[in-house]
């Protein structure tokens, strides 16, 4: 097939390239060309100038922050929140004056979050699998799983915490009402986070191509083996960043346990603040949380990038 109509305009001499007597007119200026590809403004701060510029801007920002904290006007702020002596008292605790150690309290936050995370990972998988089942027999359970995820994700964690923490002891049922607040707190965290993590799992399970399942079943693998050996490993890999994100959230939300009067980091900081009329204890608690969550989020980011690279590489294959 030929395309004569498209050849015609190309045959005509391009605008602006007129060579006279074999003399090269040199590179055409912007005005000579029919279409301009030059940007209207010059790029600024390239190379060495760029390094200098970034140094200056960094110094300005840091200087500003230092000035803000060190200025005489910020004196009461420094004394109230960043008092080193008070921070030390809060961190170590002072039993003689009834001040609980924020450091010791934080240990409770850590093991509570780890224990809850393990239970959440198992329960959430059950909920997610239930939501993805088919068949009429499991319909009521499916409905229940949907109702549960809607409810648990829709109500603020602190509300559930108050509800269970103060409601359960008043029920007057021996087994339920006499548990320690830590148990209630753990139950609430598991209850709320299982719903979130179940949705993450569900997204992961749905992200595995149907062809993978068909390939596995075609080899004679049972649906159970297919789930555990083929689907789940790929699903978890696909949603690992999201799972880690939720773990970070869970770790932070152990602070809400303080509402039940459990001696964890935030509650201890509250006590220290009440006794000393100083809030540096909260700063200590914040720093302790950051020490855990920042490496965790960095790690999540790294996995996310690795995952993205893997997928991008996969598209070209």
């Amino acid at each position, binding site marked *: 097939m030929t395309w004569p109509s498209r050849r015609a305009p190309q045959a005509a001499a391009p605008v602006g390239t007129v060579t006279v007597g074999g003399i090269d007119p040199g590179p055409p200026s912007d005005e000579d060309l029919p279409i301009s590809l030059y940007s209207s403004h010059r790029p600024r701060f390239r190379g060495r100038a760029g390094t200098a510029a970034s140094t200056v801007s960094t110094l300005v920002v840091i200087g500003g922050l230092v000035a803000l904290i060190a200025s005489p006007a910020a004196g009461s702020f420094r004394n109230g929140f960043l008092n080193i002596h008070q921070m030390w008292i809060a961190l170590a605790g002072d039993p003689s004056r009834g001040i609980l150690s924020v450091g010791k309290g934080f240990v409770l936050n850590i093991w509570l979050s780890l224990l809850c995370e393990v239970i959440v990972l198992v329960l959430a998988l059950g909920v997610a699998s239930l939501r993805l089942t088919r068949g009429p027999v499991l319909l009521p359970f499916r409905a229940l799983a949907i109702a549960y995820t809607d409810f648990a994700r829709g109500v603020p964690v602190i509300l559930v915490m108050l509800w269970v923490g103060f409601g359960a002891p008043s029920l007057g049922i021996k087994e339920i009402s006499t548990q320690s607040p830590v148990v209630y707190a753990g139950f609430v965290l598991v209850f709320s986070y299982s719903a979130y993590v179940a949705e993450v799992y569900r997204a992961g399970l749905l992200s595995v191509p149907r062809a993978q399942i068909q390939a596995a*079943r*075609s*080899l*004679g693998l049972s649906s159970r083996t297919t789930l555990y050996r*083929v689907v789940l490993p790929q699903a978890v890999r696909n949603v690992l960043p999201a799972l880690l994100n939720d773990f970070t959230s869970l770790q932070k939300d152990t602070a809400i346990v303080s509402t039940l009067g459990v001696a964890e980091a935030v509650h201890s900081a509250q006590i220290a603040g009440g006794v000393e009329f100083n809030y540096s204890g909260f700063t200590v608690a914040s720093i302790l949380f950051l020490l855990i969550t920042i490496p965790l989020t960095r790690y999540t980011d790294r996995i996310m990038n690795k995952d993205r690279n893997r997928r991008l590489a*996969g598209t070209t294959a």
Partner: protein
Amino acid sequence: MTVDERPGRVSNATPAPDPASPGSGPASPGRAPATSERSNRRAKDDLDRLPVLRATGVHKSFGPLEVLKGVELTMATHDVVCLIGSSGSGKSTLLRCCNLLERIDAGTIELFGHDLADERVNEDLVRRHTGMVFQSFNLFPHLRVLDNVTLAPRRVLGVDRGAAEARAKELLERIGLADKAHEYPDRLSGGQQQRVAIVRSLAMEPRLLLLDEVTSALDPELVAEVLDLVGELAHQGMTMLIATHEMGFAREVADTVCFLEGGRIVESGPPERIFGDPTEPATRRFLQRIIDAGRL
């Protein structure tokens, strides 16, 4: 359709002046001796008269779309049947019905003498004995090549790890990919992936192998390595039902070629006749289109 003209296959292959086949298709070396070796094997297996597959009046619809409209097909042990026809003619659907990835609406499919519609038939057992290879390879991306091959023998047949891996390495050796055993599939070329997928099926020692357009997703230069492997399996006597767009390959490797159009097998017979002297106008039209496109 029946595939009982087995002596005919050998004698038909000898009359060389076949007007429509001047040396097309990837010719694999050593073909003639392999054919006679194969017919020997057949004589030995003549007791094995039970058809591997018998489909009668197979109908299958997806919603309002009727894909199969009464397919008839019989395959004996060691048969290689190629399904040709344009996309949407029902080739893939027919294959998928044979290992119960799809359930048929009417008619019967018998596999090794069992009616697949029988309630006592366990689909996992059906699939254990019928390997399937897909257009898009579908290797498990989270498992290394070796683990892709050993997964089913270990988890389905209960073969212990050592024996399964030894067997897998032997199979990988045969396709020249032993050095890739510990790579992940995405490090392999498409042709290599597809050959691993075939070996993954072979590790289960299936009685019937279903190949669903196994070269359609491959770059042209990678097609030959996969077809060579399939051709080799054919010479070794593997029973195969192959949906393909590679006409040269179908002519070379098939005992029977079935032309599908509109959900029916319009014409079937030995490749010499289907490609050389088709009787149905629909077959002629289809082959003419293939020739016009320079694919035959």
